């Protein structure tokens, strides 16, 4: 297998004076007796793509939902470019955007109608021009007047991504953005997202179960297990540090034997 090149050169210094695009501190969420997220803290710097990895039920989507403001943490704080999400919700959410397979745009509206409505909600300047640009960038020009619900999975994913970058977000949350795509479409999509990240220097939080994709795209990964961050590091070097051949092997170990890794790694 060909070694994936590092996405781009040097990572931003998260300790610099400029606040990180995302700072989560001590996030905790429990549903009754089940603790979904257990006091995790992490940061995403401008221009950095952070992979949020872990087996099903590890707490990834719960974390994303808390960052999106649709799930209130029991404890902890989320700041977007220094803005506390709890007290500056509208301003903080205006600086981010997201795409997730479980949140399609309304299928009874056309592609351009969906983008126009969300553009108004996000206060996108020169909205008409922006929509035209995105329709071109995401190969959606011919679907402009097509209802979103009749698009194929790949086309809907392109639309979701166009929506996600509509407001030039400083923080982009992508929950399994390529899950429903064939390999060629997924590669194309990764290239588009990388292009956006490089152009806009946005921070990204990316969840995926495709480990080769993570290696290709992410600068840093956080392995979640049972609501806690078990491992953190460069996806290209992390497996070797734990005696694994690749990220997929490391993922399987995290899923099956998280305690063995927890003992050897202290954050």
């Amino acid at each position, binding site marked *: 297998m060909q070694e994936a090149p590092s996405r781009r050169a040097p990572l931003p210094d998260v300790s610099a004076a400029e606040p990180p695009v995302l700072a989560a501190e001590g996030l905790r969420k429990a549903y009754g007796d089940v603790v979904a997220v257990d006091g995790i803290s992490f940061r995403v710097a401008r221009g950095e793509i952070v992979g949020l990895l872990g087996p099903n039920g590890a707490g990834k989507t719960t974390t994303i939902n808390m960052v999106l*403001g649709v799930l209130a943490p029991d404890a902890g704080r989320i700041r977007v470019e220094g803005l506390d999400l709890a007290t500056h*919700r509208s301003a903080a959410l205006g600086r981010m955007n997201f795409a997730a397979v479980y949140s399609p745009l309304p299928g009874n509206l056309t592609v351009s109608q969906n983008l126009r409505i969300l553009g*108004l909600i996000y206060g996108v300047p020169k909205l008409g021009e922006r929509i035209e640009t995105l329709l071109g960038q995401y190969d959606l020009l011919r679907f402009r007047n097509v209802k979103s619900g009749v698009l194929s999975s790949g086309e809907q994913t392109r639309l979701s991504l166009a929506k996600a970058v509509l407001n030039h977000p400083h923080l982009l949350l992508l929950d399994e953005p390529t899950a429903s795509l064939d390999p060629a479409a997924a590669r194309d999509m990764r290239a588009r997202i990388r292009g956006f990240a490089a152009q806009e220097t946005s921070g990204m939080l990316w969840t995926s179960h495709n480990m080769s994709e993570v290696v290709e795209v992410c600068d840093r990964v956080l392995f979640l297990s049972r609501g806690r961050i078990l491992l953190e590091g460069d996806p290209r070097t992390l497996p070797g540090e734990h005696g694994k051949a690749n990220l997929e092997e490391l993922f399987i170990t995290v899923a099956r034997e998280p305690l063995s890794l927890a003992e050897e790694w202290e954050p």
Partner: protein
Amino acid sequence: MSLRRMAAIVLRHFYLIRGSLSRVFPLFVWVGIDMVLWGFISRYLAAAGAFRFSLVTTLLGAVLLWDFEARVMQGVTMAFFEDVWSRNFLNVFASPLRLSEYLGGLVLSSIATSAVGLAVMLLVAVAAFGLAFPVAGLLLAGFFLVLFLFGIALGIAGSAVVLRLGPAAEWFIWPIPAVLAPFACVFYPLATLPGWMRPVARLLPPSYVFEGMRAVVAGGAASGAMLLAGTLIAVVYILLACWIFASVHRYAVRTGLIARYAAESVS
């Protein structure tokens, strides 16, 4: 509050109505049929007996006012249900849109749709059956205002119920006008009601409107104080409904209901 974001909600509803005959027809068809049906009933009853007052005004006018109130309520709930049916909550609530702006957008959508219904009702009632309201100007505007405000309150409260209980709970919402009608004294004076129903009727703003309308039809004068009381009670209901919606929204964010909301019933 951002008018632009409220306009986005109205625009979304406009796009949906414009593109769908099944959404256009209910705006005026049922209320038009109601006018025709009650217009003939009024004519028949008027011909069958001698009445000291105009039956067309009493019956048809009452139906028109009550239908208007129901249309206002449905205008709010239908705009809300569009988000329920298209599983759009994540796109709506994980955006800079404030709750007040969202509710404001629903109310503006309702103003637009109920105005269409009202125009059709007036056209049919006046042109085909010679309906002439015995009041005009500020007093008539006051009657409509009270019903409008109460319809908005019912719509917001009904939307809160569906947000809390899930999409299947919409069947609790549709019959609300029918359930309230006996207490609202649409067709008969408040004095007709048994003792236990009267306090309930006095808590409903429409009862003040219909009592006032009947007083005028009988040759008296509508009480400005009663109209004011009806308006104030309706405003209290709107505030209460907004508080209920905000409380349910907080609950939904605390429990993850919004994140999990789907087109199925949510328990």
